[in-house]
């Protein structure tokens, strides 16, 4: 009546249990030869000489494509956990299908599983519509409830005299090795169904997915479409289930689609990318599991897709974290540089451009920064060729080290003048056209001067009728001034 007494720690049990699972999975790995040479192994895999390898590779690719395509739809509609729920909700259906057919009839199990998944999804929809429950609680409820029911039924069947339920555990973890040509058939059917559905109903699906109320107003049967998609999703999950297992099938739904979502915004492209990524992780996972000594295929496929996701997340050229961090850093450097150059201009403006160079301390005073900070800024300018530095020749009498004098190079001058021009034009534009108070415009101009393009500046100039002075009475340098090197072009001191 009671379980036999195991006088061990609970954790011993737990770990041993996990280990057993591993051994179940170990049976699922593909590698079968004693060949030591991994090059030969790799060649053997990629030439697809063995028929078993062919079947497994085709199966993994098909599953990857199926789940990737469905996943594109699932993830873009924020239903990621929905796939997870669905994959757990099919369990009781498998048990019931077995009960009715009294055998491990593939078709019966699959039908039962699809229907039970569909039932679970419908219950979520009903709970959401008719009660105040939120979607996440409804999903959690259905997930755990159906799963509990499934486990109870499977346990019950395992105890029943006719037995034969032992294979059902493969639905929990999945195994690639047991894949036969017959198993490829549902996968192929599923793929063709998905493709037909997506191609024929592309516009309808897109519309009902992204703007259901508009779709309804146009007269599309949104609810029917929704249920069709759920049915298709359930079928996709069920057909992949015995290969990859309950938990990890949702990984294959989510991860390739999330990766594709990082690469593009367009739905059609997202679907294609996510199918390709799914197929690629499928074959890569298969290969690694084939090469490795004790690697189960399902989890390795998932880890491959995770790795791919992380690579894209960090290194994708447009939106990857690393490239955009570098871009931000570069932009920050440019803006700091431009601000220093602007301050240089203002220092020279204070003495009405009578001198061509200025001392480092006057710049520090202008920027209200310490000497060391100013030193660093000027170093940066010199490094980029915007300024040169020389010792002041005049003040040799004091024992103090002589004052360092800085002068701008022509390219430095050009940028400084341009910044000043952008800044003052924008200030004037705000006061004149947008009726800002003159003392409120500085901060805004301080930001826009770095971004505003040449074209916009000309437009502003035209609107303001080529103004001379900004709201504070200072001269606005014109484009002509910039081109000519303006007032007194500083002499470039030869080194």
């Amino acid at each position, binding site marked *: 009546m009671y379980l036999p007494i195991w006088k061990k720690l609970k954790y011993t049990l*737990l770990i041993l249990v996990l280990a057993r699972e591993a051994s179940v999975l170990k049976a699922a790995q593909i590698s079968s030869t004693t060949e030591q040479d991994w090059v030969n192994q790799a060649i053997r895999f990629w030439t697809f000489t063995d028929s078993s390898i062919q079947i497994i590779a085709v199966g993994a690719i098909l599953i990857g494509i199926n789940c990737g395509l469905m996943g594109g739809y699932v993830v873009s509609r924020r239903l990621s956990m929905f796939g997870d729920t669905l994959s757990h909700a099919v369990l009781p259906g498998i048990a019931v299908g077995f009960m009715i057919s009294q055998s491990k009839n593939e078709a019966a199990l699959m039908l039962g599983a699809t229907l039970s998944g569909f039932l679970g999804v419908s219950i979520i929809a009903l709970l959401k519509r008719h*009660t105040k429950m*939120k979607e996440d609680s409804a999903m959690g409820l259905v997930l*755990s409830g159906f799963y509990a029911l499934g486990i109870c039924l499977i346990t019950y069947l395992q105890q029943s005299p006719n037995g034969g339920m032992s294979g059902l555990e493969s639905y929990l973890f999945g195994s690639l090795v047991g894949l036969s040509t017959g198993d490829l058939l549902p996968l192929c059917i599923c793929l063709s169904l998905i493709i037909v559905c997506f191609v024929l109903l592309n516009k309808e699906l897109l519309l009902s997915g992204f703007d259901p109320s508009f779709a309804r107003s146009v007269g599309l049967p949104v609810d029917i479409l929704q249920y069709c998609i759920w049915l298709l999703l359930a079928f996709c999950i069920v057909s992949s289930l015995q290969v990859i297992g309950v938990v990890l099938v949702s990984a294959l739904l989510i991860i390739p689609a999330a990766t594709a979502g990082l690469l593009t915004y367009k739905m059609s492209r997202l679907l294609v990318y996510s199918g390709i990524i799914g197929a690629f992780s499928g074959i890569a996972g298969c290969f690694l599991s084939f090469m490795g000594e004790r690697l189960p295929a399902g989890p390795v496929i998932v880890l491959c897709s995770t790795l791919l996701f992380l690579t894209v997340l960090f290194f994708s050229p447009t939106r990857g974290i690393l490239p955009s961090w570098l871009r931000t850093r570069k932009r920050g450097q440019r803006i700091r540089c431009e601000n220093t150059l602007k301050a240089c201009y203002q220092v020279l403006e204070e003495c009405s451009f009578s001198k061509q160079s200025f001392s480092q301390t006057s710049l520090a005073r202008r920027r209200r920064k310490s000497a060391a900070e100013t030193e660093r800024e000027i170093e940066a300018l010199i490094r980029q060729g915007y300024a040169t530095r020389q010792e002041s020749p005049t003040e040799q009498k004091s024992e103090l080290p002589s004052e360092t004098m800085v002068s701008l190079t022509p390219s430095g001058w050009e940028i400084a003048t341009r910044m000043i021009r952008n800044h003052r034009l924008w200030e004037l534009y705000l006061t004149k056209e947008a009726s800002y108070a003159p003392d409120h415009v500085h901060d805004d101009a301080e930001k826009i001067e770095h971004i505003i393009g040449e074209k916009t500046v000309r437009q502003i100039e035209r609107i303001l009728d080529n103004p001379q002075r900004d709201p504070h009475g200072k001269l606005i340098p014109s484009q002509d001034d910039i081109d000519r090197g303006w007032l007194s072009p500083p002499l470039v001191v030869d080194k």
Partner: protein
Amino acid sequence: MLDFAEALLDPWSTQEQVIWNLQIVFMGMMVSLSCGLVGCFVVVRRMALLGDAVSHGILPGIVIAYLITDSLSIGPVWIGACLAGLGCGASIEWLRTKTPLREDAAMGLTFTSFFALGIVLLSLEAGATHLDPACFLYGEIGLTPLSPKLELWGLPSGNQALWNMGVVCLTTMISVIVFYRFLLVTSFDCSLARSLGMPVVWIQYGLMLLLALVVVASFESVGVILVLAMMILPPVSSAFLFHRLPSILICCLPLSIFYSVAGLHLAHYMNFPISASMALAGIVIFLPCCLLGPNGGILTNNRLQIREDSRDL
């Protein structure tokens, strides 16, 4: 199969059985109570599936702790599991806030990857020991009475597993009572909480920590996935009965007693795993709540609407 009345009485027929089953019932009660209390806040914050995510995400932590210490003692396994659970939570949070991914995708992506990593590590390192895989999936609450006996000051003072769970349960209750105001305000109105000067982010992390603790403590008795049932069922069922959060929280206690007692009997009657039958008992009590509950039940709602409609006419 046993007769119904027999099934009701059978577990309590001899003294040995009474002691044995009482321990199981007590364990089940504490598990579902602590899960339910945390679950209330989790459900209110619409993070219900986080429990599922964390319970899967702890697997690599357990395996790594086992690999490092090469032992199965409780301490390292707990620390590993807690760290992995927190890592899972933190990575979901990071993906959600710092990348274009939405919350659901971040969650699904993280926990499945963690789980896959755990399985791969396990299959790489662990030997080919054979034992029933049922325990990990369904939990092993039926084995609670077998855990080693503790002796305090030379006195036999009960069951180690019960004490562990008791400490976790007590911690949960105390934290919920002490931080009740904070949890309440941050759950329902984040901006109000911020304007009151509450450390919203830290409360969020604290709740995550509590969640990880409860999940780690519970999953060995009710299994990985049914932790979620224990977390969602009590708040969701009682939300149909009561309107205010304190009543919902208090309602977790009778519900958890019902779950464990009914689960035990159901398991006894039908030979089901105990934890799964606890979840089934939860579903059984959820259905009338959902249909007839005074606070938003489907049928009561309709009746009210019909009454209102007729009044309008």
